């Protein structure tokens, strides 16, 4: 996995350069590389499949508009997921409390929409299904930090920067969030 990422990173500067010139194929590469991860992030943050798809689209539209402002000082995916994080925060702010934390959210999604590559066993799928309501139970800052780490592969420092929170706070949020998830998931049904 790390090796694959370094190969992608090697070509990434060129892709970004082409994207800045509004090369459609460069944007296709960006979409192919990140749409699945962004979708996973939005889906697990909000629990709603269609809304997640809309937000993935919105991220890429914003990327097209703002890519001239992107400076290759940080990692591209950190920049991308910062856009995603801002979008999801806006969405959560606008949502009613009931919508945002619906523990049943995402439970009825079709199997094809669930995480891939985790085995075909029914038991495994049930485990993933069980995760969604527990994610929804987490405070949004903890859920966001956990999922930014998981789907965005952001460092604690990158999350701290974009959330304007101290590094220790971010670490604690991830720590608490993961501990709760494990505890809930491992408790008897």
């Amino acid at each position, binding site marked *: 996995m790390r090796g694959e990422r370094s190969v992608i990173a090697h070509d990434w500067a060129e892709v970004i350069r082409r994207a800045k010139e509004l090369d459609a194929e460069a944007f296709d590469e960006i979409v192919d590389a990140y749409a699945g991860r962004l979708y996973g992030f939005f889906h697990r943050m909000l629990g709603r499949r269609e809304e997640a*798809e809309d937000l993935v689209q919105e991220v890429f539209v914003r990327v097209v*508009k703002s890519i001239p402002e992107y400076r290759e000082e940080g990692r591209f995916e950190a920049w991308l997921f910062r856009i995603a994080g801002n979008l999801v925060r806006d969405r959560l702010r606008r949502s009613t409390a009931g919508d945002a934390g619906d523990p049943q959210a995402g439970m009825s999604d079709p199997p094809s929409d669930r995480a891939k590559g985790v085995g075909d066993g029914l038991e495994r799928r049930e485990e993933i299904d069980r995760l969604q309501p527990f994610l929804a139970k987490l405070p949004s800052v903890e859920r966001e930090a956990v999922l930014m780490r998981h789907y965005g592969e952001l460092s604690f420092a990158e999350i701290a920067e974009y959330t304007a929170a101290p590094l220790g706070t971010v670490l604690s949020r991830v720590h608490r969030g993961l501990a709760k998830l494990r505890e809930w998931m491992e408790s008897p049904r």
Partner: protein
Amino acid sequence: MNDSERQREEVDCGEQWLAGLCERSAEIDPARIKRAVRVAIEEQWLARNLSPDAPAGLSRRARHAVREALAVASRAGVRGHRRVVRVWAWIGGGLAAAAAVVLTVFGPWRMAATSDGDEASTSFVSAFEEFKDEEEELDQELSQLRAAFSDFDQTVAKGWGEESWEEPVEKASDLTEDGV
């Protein structure tokens, strides 16, 4: 081991557990996203090349004419990717023959527009009718624009998996439809 290190270790352990449970990438069909990106690229291209602040080439009058035309098209309900591509194609064809032909091209929009769009397009058309291109300055610039649009259409067509762009033959009434 201090508290922070212990936390880091537990987080590592927890993240491995989560990674084992849930892959980092979920399945999504990128086709719709790519279409939306194409539209955004077109809009961005327009903003870059036709804004009054664009660095080279076109006069403010030419840019203003095209932007107005697109605004009219937008207000008339011309939305969605196919619509946008069609706008480019029509403008590309129409601009080559300068203002008179542009008037013809936008005629159907004027007739098909909603009340708001109708008012705006009438205003646009009036402005064009009053415009005198005595030195053929606009004509030359519009020719340049046509070449740029032609290249652009081919890029968009390629993005759709088509060999080249063929201007669609549709009735004017189709333009009143909302969406794709």
